[in-house]
Every structure is written in structure tokens, then in C-alpha cells.
């Protein structure tokens, strides 16, 4: 428990750094692009104007930097990211609300599948060291090196346009057939059909990384004396693999999960653009191309905070899996 609290404090610092970066980036940038954008909207509501000027540091009555900083922090805490300047007068938060579930479900499901599949394959490759799975290693290295969006382009080309018309080429669901998003069968099947190719992209490109890491840790762990002792006692292979070796090899894997997540999320947001998938990645790009600065910054914060939250969850799992972590908590 003590460990979790301390990690929580670390993530609070990381979140604060992200917030502060987000605050200073528009102020340190050369040029006055932001000023010009806001000039296009002379009749912004006073409250919206205040939120944007606190976030971006522009406008007439902006006050001192310090007071702007606190106004900005206060706004973020209340999920007030200001008014969207591209789709005025919608608020940034309401636009975000419609984008987050798409990315969360897609990237979340695909990452979890890739993690379990990769770890299982890694255990097998480590146990049967030198077997057929090891011969696939060079191919896996290649898969790992393919940029997410390039694989996405290939899959769209092969499965949506050229050879098979199995899957739709983009977007999250087929709006032209009159399906309305909601918890009903028509929409869910339609959305799942649209999500298969994007999810497949994430799984293929990230599964190799999990597998290679698990294999390497597994090989090192299998050389440990306690594993040899377990085998010498005549325990079943299955018990040796899972209860003795894999359980310990899983810890570095879990810790790697947190760090790799930022990478997967980054790859996934570029991939969304290929599929025109209506998540935060597409939102980020359209915000950048229309100079929609409040939206850009809100999306950055949302992505960063979700990665931090996922890291925290991983830490909880580490504590659950590692008795040493629990004993540290007990000592203090």
C-alpha cells in the first residue's frame, strides 16, 4: 500500500510536469499564431474567452503569468478546456467525450490481446529454446520494425480495396445506413466490424515486442537454480513453467508494459488517421491542421493522463504479483 501511495505521488509529479509543459509551450513558441486564431472570433463568450486566454496566454485582459497559471490549473481540474475554435461554439470537453470511447475501447482491447498473446508465445519460445518459434525471430523483428500506419495502409489496401472487400476501409461505424451509436446489436456489430482491421494492426505490430522480451527473461529465469531444483524434484513441466519460471519472468514484462504503453498509444493515434477512425488521434490531427489550439492541448492532456493511469494500474498489478512489494508495505 505504501508503495502504491508513493507511486501515486510520482504520477502526480509527472502529471504536473505535463500540465506545466502544456501551459508553457504556447507561450514560448515564436510567432503569434494563437492571437491570430482568436482574432477570428470577436464574439466569444467572456467565460470561454477567459479559459482560452488562461490556457494559451493570449488576449487583452490576460493578467499576470502566475494568475493565468492558476486559472489554467483550476480549469483543467474542472475539465474546462474552453471553447473549441474550429467547431465553435461547441466546448472542447463535449467533443472529447465523443472521441475518447472509440480510442479507449480499440487501443485497450487490442493492447490487452497483444500482451497476453505475446506473453504466452514468449513463454513457449523460452521453454522450447531453439524450437520452431525461435526460427521465427528474424521475421518477428521485421514485424516489430514496421510503422503502425504503414501496416494499416497495407491492410486497408489488401482487405478493403484491392483483393478482398471483407472489411470497411475506415471510420468507426457506417452512419449512412442510419445506425445510431448506442448499446444495441446493430451498432455494436457494425462497430466491431469496423474495428477489426485497426485492432489487427495494433496486435500484429506490438505482439512481437512482448514475445521477444518475455522469451529473453524466460531464458534467463529458466537458468536459475530454483527452476533446476524444481525440475530435479520431478515436478510436472507445466508447474515448472507457470508457477516457477513464468511467474517471476512476468514481473519485468509487467513493468515493461507501462513504458511500452506510451509507444503503443502513439502508434495507435497515427494509425487512426489511416482508418479515419473517430478517436482522439484523428481529433488531434484535425485540431492541428485547423490550428485548433485548445483542442490540441486538451487531447495531449487526455492521452498523457490515460497513460499515467494505466501505469498506476500496472503498479497495482506488480504489487499483487510480487510478494516483495507487499512485505515492504508491511515493514513500514
Amino acid at each position, binding site marked *: 500500500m505504501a508503495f502504491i501511495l*508513493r*507511486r501515486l*505521488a*510520482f*504520477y502526480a509529479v*509527472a502529471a504536473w*510536469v505535463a500540465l506545466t*509543459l*502544456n501551459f508553457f*509551450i*504556447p507561450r514560448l513558441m*515564436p*510567432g503569434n*499564431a494563437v492571437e491570430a486564431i482568436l482574432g477570428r472570433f470577436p464574439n466569444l463568450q467572456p467565460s470561454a474567452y477567459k479559459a482560452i486566454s488562461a490556457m494559451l496566454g493570449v488576449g487583452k485582459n490576460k493578467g499576470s503569468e502566475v494568475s493565468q497559471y492558476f486559472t489554467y490549473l483550476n480549469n483543467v481540474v474542472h475539465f474546462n478546456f474552453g471553447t473549441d475554435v474550429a467547431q465553435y461554439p461547441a466546448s472542447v470537453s463535449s467533443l472529447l467525450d465523443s472521441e475518447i470511447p472509440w480510442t479507449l475501447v480499440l487501443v485497450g482491447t487490442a493492447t490487452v490481446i497483444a500482451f497476453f498473446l505475446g506473453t504466452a508465445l514468449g513463454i513457449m519460445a523460452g521453454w522450447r529454446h*531453439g524450437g520452431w518459434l*525461435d*526460427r521465427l525471430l*528474424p521475421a518477428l*523483428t*521485421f514485424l*516489430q*520494425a*514496421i*510503422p503502425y*500506419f*504503414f501496416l494499416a*495502409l*497495407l491492410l486497408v*489496401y489488401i482487405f478493403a*480495396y484491392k483483393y478482398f472487400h471483407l472489411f470497411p476501409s475506415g471510420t468507426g461505424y457506417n452512419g449512412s445506413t442510419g445506425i445510431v451509436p448506442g448499446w444495441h446489436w446493430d451498432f455494436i456489430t457494425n462497430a466491431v466490424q469496423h474495428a477489426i482491421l485497426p485492432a489487427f494492426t495494433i496486435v500484429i505490430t506490438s505482439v512481437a515486442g512482448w514475445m521477444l522480451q518475455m522469451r*529473453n527473461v524466460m*531464458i*534467463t529465469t529458466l*537458468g536459475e537454480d530454483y527452476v533446476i531444483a524444481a525440475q530435479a524434484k520431478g515436478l510436472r513441466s507445466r508447474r515448472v513453467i507457470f508457477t516457477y519460471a513464468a511467474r517471476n519472468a512476468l*514481473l519485468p514484462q509487467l513493468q515493461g508494459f*507501462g*513504458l511500452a*504503453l*506510451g509507444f503503443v*498509444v*502513439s*502508434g495507435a*493515434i*497515427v494509425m487512426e*488517421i*489511416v482508418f479515419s477512425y473517430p478517436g482522439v488521434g484523428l481529433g*488531434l*490531427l484535425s485540431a*492541428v491542421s485547423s*490550428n485548433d*489550439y485548445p483542442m*490540441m*492541448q486538451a487531447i*495531449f492532456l487526455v*492521452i*498523457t493522463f490515460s*497513460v499515467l493511469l494505466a*501505469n498506476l494500474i500496472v503498479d497495482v498489478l506488480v504489487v499483487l504479483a510480487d510478494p*516483495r512489494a507487499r512485505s*515492504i508495505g508491511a515493514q513500514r
Partner: protein
Amino acid sequence: MTALLTPPVTTVATIAAPGWWRRMPLKAKTGAVLLGLFVLTAIIGPLVAPYDPGYQNPSIAVAMKGPSGAHWLGTTSTGQDVLSQLLTGIRLTLELAVLVGVIAMVLAVLIGVTSAYLGGIWDELLQLLTNVFLVIPALPLLVILLGYLPNKGQTPTILVLSALGWAWGARVIRAQTLAIRNRDFIAAARETGESTWRILAFELVPNEVSLIAASFVNTVLYAIGASVALAFLGLTDVSSWSLGTVLYWAQSQDALQLGAWWWFVPPGLAVALMGTALVLVNTGIDEIGNPRLRDASSASRIAGHRVQPTDPTPVLALVGSERSRLGSFLHSFSRSSLLEDK
């Protein structure tokens, strides 16, 4: 301060002994050859490119045609030669990635070595900074930074990528510096009255060359991936030819819908192969240090039998250092504090 298992300090000299090429793992050889080809292409590519990559010839006879004798990799929808774009693009992409690698590694060495050498609170603060930069997802931040920049040329892209790419290198270099800094030869240098800067620059850093090389390769890999992704999003200068901008134009001019595979497959494949080469070189470096990771085909044979090394390879011992009270307080927030023996 006790280092239980003193790690063997690998220097470049031991790797570069006679016969080193023969003893290199197959993967590393493949990677090195592939990488060499790309470097060669980057050097001579723009010189041997058959056309000007930006030259447009939108007549129906030329534009949007598949591979042919005149255009080996076909043409774009405006009649540009894809092969010329590829040859020019490899140079720009590799140049950017290497520069980012160099700048980020200088930052990583400075921060990693300073952190380990100063110790105490400074160490903990720099570690905190490193860990924060590791956990914040880089790409969204890069997108925002480039989104604000009015001038999106090569130089700002390089600076922004380096500013976010140093953290992992700094972390491994710090760990290695901690392991080395109490070795006898450092103590001897200190006794003979060498200045701290001399010790750092001429005694300590040369012993980390292989580690720095490995993190350099990783950073170059990150830079290729990130810069190609950013260029694909149209966030860099789209009028210069890099592999990412070729993909950007292919995507924005509907190469997919028009079935022009020759337009987007070669640049994407080039990125993937470049990445593979770098990963192979890196696993090769890893396997030189830890032979147990090699696959069975490269296991040594003695009298016709395959032999796998069985003894556990020495792993860097966790070096506990005397910490100040504030230092140990700060350290207790890190994930590594969990796995140290109390």
C-alpha cells in the same frame, strides 16, 4: 558501497579483435550489411536518382503508371518518379535520425553521468526528470510542439525530437556509471590528482562506449519512427523529400483508392527494413554481452554436440549507494526501489 559482482567492462577494443567479423552473431552480420546498404544509398542515392524527385509530368501517358523500364518504381499521380523520391528520401530520413541520435546521446551522457557522479539529491532529481520524460507519451507532445511551430523545417524537427529522446539513454548510462565509478582505476586516477572532468571524459566515458553505442542505435530507431510518423501526418516540411513525406503525398492523393501500391509500399518497406537492420544490430550487441540469448543455430558445437551455456550470466549487481535522507525519500518513489533487497 558494495558491488558484489563486478561487471566485465566491455570495450570496443575487445570486440574489434582479429576475426571479430567471423565471431559476430549471424543476426548482427545481417543487420550490419543491411544498414551498410542504407547508408550507401543515403550517400550516393540523390546522385544516382534518375529524375528530379519533384519534377512533375502530369500527362496521362506518364502519370500514375506502375513499374516500367523508364520508371522502375512507377510514377505518382503528378508523374513524379517514385524511385527518385525513395533514393532522395532515404538520405533525408537517415540524416535526420543520425543527427537526433547524436544530439540525444550527448544529452543522455551529460545527464546520466552527472546524475550518477553527483549522487545524493541531484541524482534523485535528475532521475525523477528522466522517469517523467520516460512515462509521458512522446508522439502527442511532438505533434503539439510541431503544431505550434511556424517554421516546420528540418532543424526544428531535429531539435524537438532530440529534446524528447534522451531519457532512456540517460537511464542506462546512469546505471552503468554507478557500477563503474567505484572501480579501482577510477580511484587510482583520483589519487594521482586528475581533475574530475578529466576522470569523467577520459576514464569513465570511454568505458561506456559499447553501452552508448547501443543506446545510440535505439535512439536512431526512435527518431526514424517518430520522424516518419510526423512527416506522414504532414507536420514537417512537406515540400522536402523524406520517406515520411512520400507516404504523406501517397495517402493524401488517394494512392490506396487508386490501387497505386508502387507509390506507398517501397517507402514503407524501406522504413521497416531500416528499422529491422537497427534492431538486428542491437540484438547482436546484446548477444555479444549475453550469449544465452542466442538462438540454437548459433550455439557453439563441441565434438558435434550442441552446447548451450548453462551457468547464469553475471548480471549487473544492483549497487546501493549511501543516500542522503532527502535522497532516499525521493528514491522511494521510484519503481526500482521495489526490487532492491532491503
